[in-house]
C-alpha cells in the first residue's frame, strides 16, 4: 500500500517522505492476543488460498506416479504447447521491454502534451478484461472485422494464428515493464542525463551509459513479471487461438483441453509445469533481491 501510494505520488511528479514522527512511539497498541489472532488469521488465509491450491496441483499431477507424469509431460501436443508458450513469450516480452523502456523514458525524462493520456493508455490493459482484449482483435482482424476483407485480399493471417496469440499477449502484458520503470525513472530525475549531455555525450550514449544502467534492476523485475503473465495468460489468447491442436494451443489452453478430455493427470501435469515456471520466476526475483538487495533498494522502494 505504501509503495503504491508513493508510486502514485511520484507519478504526479512529487516525492514525499513518509512521516518520521510516528517512529517515536509504538506503532501498535493492541493487546498481544488480538495481534496474534490477526496474524494467525492472515497465515491461515494464505495457507488456504495460496499454498494449498499450489500443493494440490503438484499432488494431482503426481497422483498416478512419476511414470504417468512423465508420460503426460512427454506427449507431443504438450511439448508443442510448451514450445508455443515460450515462443509467444519470447516475442512478446522483448517487444514489451522495448516499448516499455521507450514509453517510460519519454514520460519520465520529457514534458509533452498528452503525457497523462499516454499514461492512461499504458494502464488500459490492466483495467480491461482479458476476454475483451482478445475480442477486440477478432473484431478488428477477424474475417468480418474492420480490416478482415483487406487482410484476406493481402493473404495476411492474424487471428487464429501465432500472430494473433503474440498480439493478444503483447496487449495484456504491455503495462508491466513501463509501470515498473516510470516511477523509478521519475524519482531519479534528469540531472544525470543533463550532465552527460552537457559534457558532450550523444543521446544514444547517454541512454546506454546513464539511463539504462540506472534502471537495470527495475527493468529486470518488470521483465520477470511480464514474462510470468505472458506465459500464464488464458482469456485473451483463448479468444484468438482457434484451439488447433499442436498448432495454436498454449500451455494454459492445453491444460483446459486435457481436463475436458478426462485426462486429469495430464491436465495437472501441464499445470504443474506452468506453476513450476512461475515458481522459477519468483525464486529468480527473490534471489536477485537477496543478492543485490541494496542495489535494488537504492533504485526502487519495494
Amino acid at each position, binding site marked *: 500500500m505504501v509503495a503504491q501510494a508513493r508510486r502514485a505520488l511520484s507519478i504526479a511528479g512529487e516525492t514525499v517522505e513518509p512521516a518520521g514522527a510516528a517512529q517515536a512511539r509504538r506503532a501498535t497498541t493492541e493487546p498481544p492476543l488480538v495481534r496474534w489472532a490477526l496474524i494467525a488469521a492472515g497465515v491461515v488465509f494464505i495457507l488456504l488460498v495460496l499454498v494449498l491450491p499450489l500443493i494440490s496441483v503438484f499432488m494431482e499431477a503426481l497422483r498416478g506416479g512419476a511414470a504417468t507424469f512423465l508420460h503426460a509431460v512427454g506427449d507431443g501436443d504438450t511439448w508443442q504447447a510448451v514450445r508455443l508458450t515460450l515462443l509467444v513469450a519470447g516475442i512478446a516480452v522483448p517487444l514489451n521491454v522495448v516499448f516499455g523502456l521507450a514509453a517510460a523514458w519519454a514520460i519520465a525524462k520529457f514534458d509533452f502534451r498528452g503525457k497523462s493520456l499516454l499514461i492512461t493508455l499504458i494502464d488500459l490493459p490492466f483495467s480491461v478484461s482479458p476476454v475483451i482484449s482478445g475480442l477486440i482483435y*477478432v473484431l478488428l482482424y477477424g474475417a*468480418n472485422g474492420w480490416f478482415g476483407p483487406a487482410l484476406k485480399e*493481402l*493473404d*495476411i493471417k492474424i487471428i487464429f494464428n501465432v500472430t494473433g496469440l503474440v498480439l493478444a499477449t503483447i496487449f495484456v502484458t504491455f503495462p508491466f515493464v513501463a509501470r515498473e520503470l516510470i516511477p523509478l525513472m521519475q524519482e531519479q530525475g534528469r540531472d544525470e542525463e543533463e550532465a552527460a549531455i552537457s559534457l558532450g555525450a550523444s543521446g544514444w550514449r547517454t541512454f546506454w551509459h546513464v539511463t539504462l544502467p540506472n534502471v537495470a534492476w527495475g527493468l529486470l523485475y518488470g521483465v520477470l513479471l511480464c514474462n510470468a503473465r505472458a506465459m500464464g495468460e488464458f482469456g485473451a489468447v483463448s479468444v484468438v487461438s482457434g484451439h*488447433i491442436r499442436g498448432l495454436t494451443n498454449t500451455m494454459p489452453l492445453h491444460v483446459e483441453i486435457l481436463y475436458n*478430455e*478426462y485426462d486429469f493427470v495430464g491436465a495437472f501435469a501441464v499445470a504443474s509445469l506452468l506453476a513450476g515456471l512461475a515458481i522459477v520466476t519468483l525464486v529468480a526475483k527473490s534471489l536477485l533481491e537477496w543478492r543485490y538487495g541494496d542495489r535494488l533498494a537504492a533504485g526502487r522502494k519495494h
Partner: protein
Amino acid sequence: MSDRLSRAIRGAAFAIGIVAGMSAAHADTTMLNVSYDPTRELYKAINESFAAKWLAETGEVVTVGQSHGGSGKQARAVIDGLEADVVTLALAYDIDAIARNSDLLGKDWQERLPNNSSPYTSIIVFLVRKGNPKGIKDWPDLLKPDVQVITPNPKTSGGARWNYLAAWAYALEQSGGDEAEAKRFVGDLYSRVPVLDAGARGSTTTFAQRELGDVLLTWENEAHLAVKHLGADKLEIVVPSTSILAEPPVALIDGNVDDHGTRRVAEAYLRYLYSPDAQEIAAQNFYRPTDQTVAARYADQFPQIPLVTIDQAFGGWQEAQKKHFADGGIFDQIYRPGQ
C-alpha cells in the same frame, strides 16, 4: 481493384509475410477439421487412418489439424476467420449459421453428402449412477419426486438442444400431439435441473466428477466415453423407450479449400468418413455407423429403439430453433431458474 494494384499489394503482402515469418511454406498438405466437443478421440483415430490411406493412394503426406469446442462457438470462430477446410459440428443449425453469416459455403450444403451429410449418428440416452438407485428407466421416471436431472444449456450447447427435443418429442407422442402437455412435461423436467452447464462435456463433469444430480441426459457416445474413462463401477447407461436421431453433420468449407488449394484432399476426407474403415472407427468410438454392414457388426452395442428425426418431428432445425430456442421461445417460457 485493378489487376496491377492488386498484384502490387500482393507483392507487398508477400514481402511483409516473409519479414514477419508468417508465410508458412509446407511441402506437405495440411488441412483443418473444426469440430465440436466430444469428437476429439474419434477424429484423432480417423485422421491417422485417413493420412495413411491418402499416402498409400496418392503418395502425398497430409496432416489433418483438429480444433474442438462447443459447436456454436466453433461455428462462430469459422465465421470470424478460423480457416477450417471442413467442419464436423453437432447439429445442422450451426453449419447453417456459417452459410448464413459468411460466403464460405452454399446454403444447400446439407444435400451434398449422403444421410443429410451425417456420416454417423447418435441418440440421446440417460447416464445414471451404478445400480440405478432412483430406478430411472424411461422419460416419465425423470419426473419422479426426488430426481435431479443434469443437462447443459440449450442456448449454448448442441447436445443440450438434442436432449430437450428428445424429451419434447416423447411428451408430444404420449399426449397424442397435445403441445400444452408437452410444454408441461418439459417445464417440469427443467425445474429439476440444478445447474445448466454451457456444454455437454461440462455437464458430464458436473454429473460424474462433482456427483451432482441423479441422471445425466447426454449423447450415447458421450455416455459410453464417460463410462469408459470414469469407471463402469460408478456409472451405467439407461436407454429410454424412445429417443431422437441426432445427426451431427459435416461440410466442406468451399471458400477456404479454394484459398488453401485443399479441395481435392478435403473432399476425399469427407467421403472417407462414409467408408467402411472410418465407419468402423466411428462405431468403436460409440457413434452409430450409417454403413449397414458395419452397423450390423456392432448391433449389440447400439440398441434399436423408435427414434424421431428433427425433420419429421420438428420440421427441420430452422423451425425448431425459432420455436423452441430463440429469445422468447418455449425454452425461455418454461425455464425459470431458482423456482
